[in-house]
């Protein structure tokens, strides 16, 4: 008689939850665009993220607004365990997909599992140490930031570009200027967006994302179990969670251990509670169907087949602690050096044009968690990820590149989506008086100054109501020529003049960054 396969209700529920939260995540970032009328503000993603909130708060010695929400997440973890990693985290969902590529199981011994999962604590401590010394490094390994950067700077631009190109090809090739073109226009003004956005050096962001997720092909959830510092925080919180796994009638078949994607199950079928992400696979894989998840029952404190955790789990030896301290030295050294040669470092970083109202360069790179929200929302596509232009500490922070897009005079979107306040929320009237930099005319390049021809495109576009670009008259060969001169008191460095300047390859009017407030 054929036995009916049990319906994996809990696994289906997890799939549904993962899909739902992934879709929600993409939706939130997709709606992070003008006019910013999505159901949720993209800040919420990072306010729920204890790693970002706690360590950015610690390194900047302030309490960030999301502190309460992230504490709620920690409290939930105290009850349920690492539900976030298994049921919510969009990066985890992607990693799970990559994990399904390889069917062959990769069994690691308990000892290897134990040392592998300890790496993430080193990373967490490194982040914490640097935060204590005032440097925010949570952005490097924060899973939400990694996922958000990928979605905002790689996924959405690629999808919109391909859709637009497909429509463009079909419409021009087959002359579908009727209904299909109207459909395309309707799409453009609703969900697709008017412009296909471009982000410079976004390939590096993609490669980083791919390395994190595709590592799951070698070992399921490799990133989550070994490296993720947010996972480490949840691991510490979930160690004493109320929801626990119980097994009865164990046959010692080892199937649950070989199926466990986190390597949380030991040889004796017991598990490390904090490592379990509640994927619910073991509940259905267990041949005698003896595995259950339930809240701890006070009447039965001892479970016969679930022995206590091994002694050294999660502990750090003296040697390892020393190694940690030594490994933190590069961070400290960097800070000292910066403090000593402060002026030089400032000059180095000030060549960048930061978003309107951004904090002082030093503070800005520490507040910024590189979530990419500001670049995604920037209406002109002018905010671009920095690669190494402001040193190693400025990687993937936003800068304005006027050749690609300028800062729109009435727009305050970037400040409204910044989760940490690196770009403050400014009223339009204040934003319009906040200089990002100052425009400088290169008189050797300028059409009017050098070639004595009519141009004045920069003055025409200048958005300052009283015009920050003044005109100097010159009579040249009997013809009146107007030449642009920047009024340094009025210029706000929005970069529109540089954006529209017709001189190539280098624009004749360029904005020099002001280095924040």
């Amino acid at each position: 008689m054929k036995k009916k396969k049990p319906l994996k209700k809990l696994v289906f529920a997890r799939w549904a939850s993962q899909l739902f939260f992934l879709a929600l995540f993409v939706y939130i970032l997709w709606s992070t665009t003008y006019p910013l009328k999505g159901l949720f503000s993209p800040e919420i993603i990072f306010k729920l993220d204890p790693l970002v909130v706690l360590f950015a708060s610690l390194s900047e010695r302030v309490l960030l607004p999301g502190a309460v929400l992230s504490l709620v997440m920690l409290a939930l973890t105290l009850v349920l365990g690492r539900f976030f990693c298994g049921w919510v985290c969009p990066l985890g969902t992607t990693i799970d997909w990559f994990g399904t590529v390889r069917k062959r199981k990769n069994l690691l011994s308990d000892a290897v599992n134990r040392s592998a999962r300890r790496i993430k604590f080193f990373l967490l401590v490194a982040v914490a140490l640097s935060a204590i010394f005032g440097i925010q490094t949570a952005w490097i390994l924060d899973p939400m930031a990694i996922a958000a950067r990928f979605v905002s700077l790689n996924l959405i631009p690629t999808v919109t570009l391909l859709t637009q190109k497909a429509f463009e090809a079909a419409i021009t090739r087959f002359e579908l200027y009727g209904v299909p073109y109207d459909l395309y226009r309707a799409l453009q003004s609703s969900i697709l967006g008017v412009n296909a956005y471009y982000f410079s050096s976004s390939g590096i962001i993609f490669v980083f994302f791919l390395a994190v997720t595709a590592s799951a092909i070698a070992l399921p959830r490799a990133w989550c179990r070994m490296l993720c510092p947010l996972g480490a925080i949840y691991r510490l919180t979930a160690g004493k969670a109320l929801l626990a796994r119980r097994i009865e009638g164990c046959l010692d078949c080892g199937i649950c251990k070989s199926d466990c994607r986190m390597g949380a199950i030991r040889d004796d079928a017991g598990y490390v509670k904090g490592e379990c992400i509640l994927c619910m696979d073991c509940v259905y894989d267990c041949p005698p169907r003896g595995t259950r998840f339930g809240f701890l029952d006070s009447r039965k404190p001892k479970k016969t087949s679930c022995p206590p955790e091994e002694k050294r789990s999660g502990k750090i030896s003296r040697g390892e602690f020393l190694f940690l301290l030594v490994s933190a030295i590069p961070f400290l050294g960097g800070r000292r050096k910066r403090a000593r040669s402060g002026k030089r470092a400032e000059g180095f970083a000030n060549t960048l044009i930061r978003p309107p109202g951004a904090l002082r360069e030093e503070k800005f790179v520490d507040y910024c968690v590189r979530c990419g929200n500001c670049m995604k929302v920037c209406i002109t596509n002018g905010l671009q990820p920095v690669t190494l232009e402001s040193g190693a500490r400025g990687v993937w922070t936003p800068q304005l590149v006027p050749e690609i897009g300028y800062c729109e005079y009435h727009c305050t979107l970037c400040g409204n989506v910044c989760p940490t306040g690196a770009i403050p929320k400014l009223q339009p009237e204040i934003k319009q008086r906040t200089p990002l930099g100052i425009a400088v005319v290169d008189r050797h390049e300028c059409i009017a100054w050098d070639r004595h021809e009519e141009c004045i495109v920069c003055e025409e576009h200048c958005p300052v109501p009283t015009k920050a670009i003044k005109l100097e008259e010159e009579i040249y060969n009997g013809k009146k020529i107007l030449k642009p001169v920047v009024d340094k008191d009025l210029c706000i460095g929005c970069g529109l003049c540089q954006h529209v300047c017709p001189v190539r390859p280098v624009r004749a009017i360029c904005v020099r960054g002001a280095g924040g407030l």
Partner: protein
Amino acid sequence: MEDLFYRLELFLKRQVSRGKFLKVFLGWLAVFIAENRFLKMAFAKTAESEGRPKRKIKGNYDLVVSEGPDSYQNTIKAIEALGGMGLFVKKGAVVVIKPNMGWDRTPEQAANTDPGVIAALTEMCYKAGAKRVNIFDIPCNDERRCYENSGIEKAAKEKGAYVYFANQWNAVKAKFPYKSQMERWSILRDAVQCDTFINVPVLKHHSLAGLTLSMKNLMGICGGMRGLMHPNMGEKLVDLTGFINPELTVIDATRYLTKNGPSGGNVADVTVLNKVVAATDPVLADAYAGTLAGKDPLFLSCVKEAVARNFGSADIAGAKIFTVPT
């Protein structure tokens, strides 16, 4: 780790036969050629166009001015006095109304055409039997902000017009029977392939041209690097106007931005004139609107150029001008 390096070494040192090398090389070449051919096939070449023919339309007057507190009523009165929209719009016609909505400014700041004028024109076009009224512009600021904050998108959509963002790829290359600096400039296809083109500029200051009027407003349908149109602008604008040949020019002089144009932004720079000018000849309209701003009719370089080429007339004293009694 050592195993990995060993495998890498094996991979780098492996023997490749000539046949296999050729196969792989030719295979990739074929893929490359096929991709190139596919992309060439997929995207059609931009067509050339000689522009729109000039239609001889004789109104009751050469130019009509109407004055009053409401721009919507002004427009209707001006067009009715000129002979009604039926002169310009035939049954089933596709109409393009080209306002100036190039800047992220409110109507009060007078950098864009007044939404009341556009609403009135849209309504009259549909009443005259138009099949479809298209409204678009390539603005200088962000499209979404310009369309919304100028108030034109909302006002025109209420009257049933199609207000959409112009796609720069949907363009034609301009071709001229004479030597022109505008040769091969890309111009929006929708603006060229329509039955009636109504040009609706706003009267405002411009530092280079002096004033922005109907001929300058046509720059909004040009793609490419428009900054390069500024040297010798007068000639280029006349070429462009001859390419498009707008049937009707309605100049919105409800508010006049007197300085810091064309973007403006300061309400103190705005003078309220409460006038709407309508004419069939764009040159006459520009010359007359120039006098509204207190300038000489030949003040604009494009008007001077047009008169020199006999493209239009700037003879205000000799033209039949009618002022609608309020």
